[in-house]
């Protein structure tokens, strides 16, 4: 499957933040590889560390409070240790990003055309004005903005949410990046618009061949778009699987809970919803052992192991799924088959 060449290598990435209340361990020991043209989904709830991960890949976290260790390699450069100038060369050209809220992602003080042009010019200083203008119109056309010549001179607030997200995508793709990080790209949009934007991203991926790292809390979006999936909980990957495997036989109790909650919403039956009890832990003070154990109804099956020992991410079950859980493989498959579809 992964015969294409890797465009992004993340090794043992850990990110922590110094806050007045103590150190927040937002991402712990994260490793994955993203290949050319691939779509990798990262799914998790708030506080799972998925957005911090996305920011780390471009070194966008606050340099004063954040400490990052490990390696993030893009185009042969370790983003975490490279000079600011080197990282700046990568940003927007090799690796680009689409943000969650298109309402706030565009600079309200400049026209959208200017903002697209700016992104192009910074990596193409040699381009003439005419070339830049042509590029702006090309990108706007590409992302499906009608009447681009006129609309390039308008300001972000004159666009609808969906149109703004198209502009953000145009900015991201103006330099043909090899990697597109999409951090909750459709969460702030209405469903009909969400569908439009997801379609657009996939169509452009086919055209450009870029790899997409899709970060979302929405399993529906994952199911429609991603090929491989990382499930994150409290800063760690708890499951790593092919998207079909994940939905067919999920291999981690957290994934079970997540799928259960969504699945029961999908069916029309009224009645008690399956939920994950309790709330996500504070990243200031993570539970010992497996961070999920206080909410896990299976933790007791392993004696005290779940409270003392952090499970490693290992291959579990019949498929190529990796899971960080102390439960025996047979038990996982047994339950996973019941939960999956």
């Amino acid at each position, binding site marked *: 499957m992964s015969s294409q060449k890797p465009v992004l290598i993340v090794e043992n990435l850990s990110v922590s933040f110094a806050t007045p209340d103590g150190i927040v361990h937002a991402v712990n020991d994260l490793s994955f590889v993203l290949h050319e043209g691939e779509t990798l989904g990262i799914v998790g709830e708030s506080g799972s560390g998925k957005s911090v991960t996305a920011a780390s890949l471009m070194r966008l976290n606050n340099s004063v409070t954040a400490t990052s260790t490990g390696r993030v390699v893009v185009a042969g450069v370790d983003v975490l240790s490279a000079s600011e100038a080197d990282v700046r060369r990568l940003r927007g050209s090799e690796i680009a990003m689409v943000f969650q809220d298109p309402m706030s992602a565009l600079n309200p003080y400049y026209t959208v055309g200017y903002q697209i042009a700016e992104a192009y010019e910074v990596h193409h200083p040699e381009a003439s004005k005419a070339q830049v203008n042509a590029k702006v119109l090309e990108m706007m056309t590409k992302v499906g903005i009608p009447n681009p010549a006129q609309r390039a001179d308008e300001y972000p607030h004159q666009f609808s949410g969906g149109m703004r997200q198209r502009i953000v995508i145009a900015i991201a793709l103006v330099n043909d990046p090899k990697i597109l990080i999409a951090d909750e790209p459709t969460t702030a949009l209405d469903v009909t618009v969400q569908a439009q934007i997801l379609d657009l991203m996939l169509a452009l991926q086919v055209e450009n061949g870029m790899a997409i790292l899709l970060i979302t809390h929405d399993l529906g979006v994952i199911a429609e778009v991603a090929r491989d999936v990382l499930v994150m909980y409290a800063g760690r990957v708890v499951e790593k699987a092919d998207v079909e495997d994940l939905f067919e036989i999920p291999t981690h109790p957290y994934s079970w809970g997540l799928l259960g909650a969504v699945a029961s919403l999908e069916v029309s039956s009224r009645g008690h919803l399956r939920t994950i009890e309790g*709330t996500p832990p504070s990243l200031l003070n993570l539970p010992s052992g497996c961070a999920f154990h206080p909410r896990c109804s299976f933790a007791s099956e392993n004696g005290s192991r779940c409270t003392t020992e952090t499970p490693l991410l290992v291959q579990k079950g019949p498929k190529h799924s990796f899971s960080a859980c102390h439960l025996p493989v047979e038990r996982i498959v047994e339950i996973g088959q019941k939960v999956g579809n």
Partner: protein
Amino acid sequence: MFTPIALEAKNLVKYFPTGHQGLLGRPTKELKAVDGVSFVLRQGETLGIVGESGCGKSTLARLITRLLDATSGEVILDGKDITSIKGRELRAVRQKLQMIFQDPYSSLNPRHSVGQIISGPLEVQGIIPDGGVKKRVQEMMELVGLNPEHYNRYPHEFSGGQRQRIGIARSLILNPSIIIADEPVSALDVSIQAQILNLLEKLQQELGLSFVFIAHDLSVVRHIADQVAVMYLGKIVEMGPSADVYASALHPYTTALLSAVPVPNPKMRGASGRIRLEGDVPSPVDPPSGCRFRTRCWKATDLCALEEPALADAGGGHLVACHHPMEASERAGKPHSDR
């Protein structure tokens, strides 16, 4: 045969003045946020209202709860129109009609303790319950699944889900009969959403509450609602029993809306044709003539521009406002629309 009516809206209209021109700066245009909405909420039932942003659903919630004054129309509670009452009468109505808000972070005063927040409505109404305020608040906290010992804590010490529970406790303390919930779970994580929805259902059963449940998330509404109304540009385009609407949507917009929801099953990916709506919702300041959906509708004809379709019963209490409702055959092999 029918359960009694808890609340009825009759032809509710809310226009916001907009666009200032001329020397005296009189508003020249109107934003038609809610434009002739009628519905019936029966006792102990849940009416779900869905629609995309800008369809007028939140304005509707504020009209019902009298946080906004309607331009015209009636809201009938206990056989009485409450759109123009004032003072003591209004306070009595507020006691019966409570609201739950979307954002559990900004709707709680950070300087007040949980006890103060939950007992707030008692203070406003000047009610001292039997056994004292604290006892009543702690009962409420227990009811919504909060630890009553946390009476003196402050909102920032609680997670989002717990804060929404605080909001629910506050709205229940006056023993209301009707709850208007405006996007009560959309700011919460999936696993927490389910907890809150379970709680609301439990409360409905235990207290015999009637809900108006407003959301953009179709699956959430599907789960909780008995009746569902779909809004588009200030009007209800389809309304009926939840099961009917979801299983056999009649309005093209409803169909498109349902079709756009991502299905959490990768095997379904690309399996069936999807309806992809083009473009954006038109401005409510200057809505299209006739049927408001016609500019984005693949079934639109000249008739749709000329004549506004009435919301009419298509059988079994399933109402639709469309000149060309979906046929059973169309739903089976959902039509394509190229991207």
